[in-house]
């Protein structure tokens, strides 16, 4: 059974991109008027929108059919991101525009350079090793910022967050590993036998535990949750059993309890989450200000440029969802959430339709990364789970995060190009004829 969610054709993609340009420019104009700036400055956001349209054209090279929904979704998310960032700090927004253009170039590069996404499968161990290496170098020689050593580079010239790149590399590694061993794992499974197939799942678990150790040492709880979530998802994919998922969740819970008693900052995070009102002007300040912003927004928001993002610490990164909630209301937050749902659902959909195991698993893993990232950060802002430092894809300010999101997008598009059979997929065939 291979059903697909909406599959727009080539012309529809262009219309959707133009629509997202229109929305972004309108939003920017509103922000500029509210902030008493020249409304013409609103046109800066068209750099990103035009970049998307140009990209969509460049990706036509070779004339192969590909996915037509992901680019418009990303374009709208980026547009909303620029509007919100401009509202918080125009300088950051200007830099973010450059990051997005760089990201788009990286995406085009990946898409065009990788002839066939299946060619990436042999590099799975390289990817894993590079990810681990990057993290270890960061741990040893990284730069500290906001109390966590998460940056690599030379001060003032070039800085990037290896953990962002590690997410993609990890997805490549897991997809490659399971694609190779999946059949063996399944063959070695014995019904009713606890932890059957451990011979091949065990190493995977070890690798993930090692990563988790690194993150806990680096005080990067967000990444720890993300990697663990990814592993849980992949182990379920590979075995079809909940045993490994439950096992890793139990390990994780145990680790968290241990971390709670061992590390002051973990304890603090949990205590703030349980009761932010205990210290409303100190530790609980950030989360409460985020909730105030959400409450102030109500159903339709106070209007672009009329909120108070200045009251929220880290409004441009971790708490950006609260700013959207204040100025665009529940309507805005739900719209943004829906865009993420589309991206995630589309990734899983590609995974289901891919004719190749590696491509299928890669698309699914990337979908899981997008889903986890969105759920963990929105859940944190909404006090559903403890707040951890994690970026909101395509919206939060941050060069590494933006570029890496675009690379992930490029990989998803490559999967749609190489592994989804157009002969068996009428929707894609339709797309080509138009």
């Amino acid at each position, binding site marked *: 059974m291979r059903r697909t969610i909406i599959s727009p054709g080539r012309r529809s993609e262009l219309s959707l991109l133009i629509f997202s340009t229109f929305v972004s420019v309108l939003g920017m104009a509103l922000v500029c008027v509210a902030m008493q700036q020249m409304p013409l400055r609103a046109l800066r956001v068209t750099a990103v929108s035009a970049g998307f349209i140009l990209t969509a054209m460049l990706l036509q090279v070779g004339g192969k059919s590909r996915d037509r929904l992901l680019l418009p979704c990303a374009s709208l998310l980026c547009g909303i991101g620029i509007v919100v960032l401009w509202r918080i700090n125009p300088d950051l927004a200007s830099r973010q525009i450059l990051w997005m253009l760089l990201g788009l170039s990286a995406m085009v590069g990946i898409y065009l350079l990788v002839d066939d996404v299946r060619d990436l499968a042999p590099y799975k161990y390289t990817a894993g090793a590079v990810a681990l290496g990057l993290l270890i170098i960061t741990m040893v020689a990284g730069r500290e910022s906001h109390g966590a050593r998460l940056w690599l580079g030379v001060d003032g010239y070039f800085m990037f967050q290896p953990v962002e790149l590690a997410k993609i590399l990890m997805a490549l590694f897991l997809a490659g590993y399971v694609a190779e061993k999946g059949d063996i794992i399944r063959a070695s499974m014995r019904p009713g036998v606890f932890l059957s197939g451990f011979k091949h799942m065990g190493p995977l678990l070890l690798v993930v535990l090692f990563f988790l150790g690194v993150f806990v040492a680096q005080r990067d709880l967000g990444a720890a949750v993300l990697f663990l979530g990814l592993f849980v998802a992949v182990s*379920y994919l590979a075995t079809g059993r909940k045993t490994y998922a439950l096992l890793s969740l139990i390990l994780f819970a145990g680790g968290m309890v241990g971390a709670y008693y061992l590390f002051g900052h973990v304890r603090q995070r949990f205590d703030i989450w349980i009761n932010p009102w205990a210290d409303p002007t100190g530790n609980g300040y950030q989360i*409460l200000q985020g909730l105030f912003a959400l*409450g102030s927004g109500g159903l339709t928001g106070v209007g672009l440029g009329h909120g108070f993002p200045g009251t929220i610490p880290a409004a441009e990164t971790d708490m950006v969802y609260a700013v959207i909630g204040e100025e665009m209301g*529940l309507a805005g937050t739900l719209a943004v959430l829906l865009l993420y749902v589309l991206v995630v*659902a589309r990734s899983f959909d590609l995974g289901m339709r891919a004719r190749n*195991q590696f491509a299928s698993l890669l698309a699914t893993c990337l979908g899981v990364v997008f*889903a986890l990232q969105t759920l963990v950060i929105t859940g944190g802002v*909404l006090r559903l789970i403890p707040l951890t430092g994690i970026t909101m894809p395509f919206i939060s300010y941050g060069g590494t995060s933006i570029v890496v999101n675009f690379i992930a997008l490029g990989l998803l598009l490559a999967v749609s190009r190489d592994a989804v059979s157009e002969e068996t997929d009428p929707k894609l065939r339709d797309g080509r004829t138009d």
Partner: protein
Amino acid sequence: MTDYSPNIRKLLAISLWGFVLIALVLGYWQIVMAPALNASKYNQRQSLALQRIRPGRVLTKDGVVILAPQRQDGQWKFTYPAGSDFAHLTGYAPRTGLQYGLREPLYGMGQYADAWRDLLAGGPTGNDVILTINSTAQKLAEEELDGRRGAVVALNPRTGATLVLASAPTYDPAEVSSSQEELDLLRFDPNVPELDRAVQGLYPPGSVFKIFTAAVGLDLGLVTPETEFRCAGTERVAHTRVKCRILSGHGTLTLDKALWASCNIAFAKLGDKIGIDNFIEYMKKFHLLDEANVGLPSKKGRMYDFRGFKGDAQLALASFGQGATMLTPLQVARLTAAIANKGHVLQPYIISQVTTPDKRVRMKGQAGDFGQAVKPETAHTLAGMMQDVVEKGTGRVAAIRGVSVAGKTGSAENPQGPAHGWFTCFAPVENPQVVVTVLVEGGESGSESAGPIARKVLEELLETQNR
């Protein structure tokens, strides 16, 4: 080849449930909990919203700017171009003086809001407020009070407009608003400069209160200015001992002379004659104890509850302004203005008009109407008696060449120290235009301490108001 599709489908379902959960929690915070979050005392949005608005200016009637907005560190703040003479009007911080009382028009909130205008003006803008205050008289009053503790209130008895609202000692609002040290000095000054004595200072009214007792007696027809009283210096009235100003007593005297010579015993006897019920009824008619309504925090007057223990004795004391009676200078001025305005009581106002940034008049101020307290003839007779006070009695110091002035002095006994000096007057008697009430704390004799100040402010106002 293994098909992972079923597993992917399940993962997708789990993710979607996660998104549904997020959507529900979004609704919880943004809709269900929104009122509680907005009301939290840790939510700074309301005060931050005010800082975005460019407030209007506050001007006196004659165009002197006393509060002007200025952009400072990206926020709108007030400056105090007119200085200490207007400190009690301007205040020195957002919650003091008229900055609080006039915040709605100044920040364009409520009925003064105009979203379209704000958009055209390039940001939310407030309205200018023009006060009824006369700046030269206000400055003169502060100058005259300098070095003393006291207050000057001047009203237009016909319209109820507040012309002067001065309180001393005063302070420099610019300094206090910019330095914590100056603010501490202000807060801990034993002379309490922060107190606006004109509307917040409660004082025993002393002999100026005889105006009220006389008005009630005349209006009830119990007495005429020629009605005779006996004063023996010290007498028992209503089971309490009343002492007169002159220990040997005034002998037999008319009510008219009792007012200009300020005899306590005659008024104690008149009060006894009036009785508790009538006295209370007229207090209500005059709205004697009502607080002011001039955009400033102000106090209610106080009076002994005559229906309580030994009410008749307290009434005798109250009849000449002693006992437990406490009034603010503005309340005494309002009482005087009622006599000047043919017995019609007006609640003084201070906003002359509110002008939008595009120079349209948004609102014009007017006095509150408290209705007729005594008959016009009663007020007329009493005005004549008060004129005698200035022409041949204790109030001679307030006499102005060529103008008929009516007034009343007071030296109110004060258990904490020297008596407070009062003077309240209006002029011209035939066509009253200005009421001036002066209080000098510890000024002993009203005619010596408060009288000269009242005369100068009266002269100044008669000159400038007619211009």
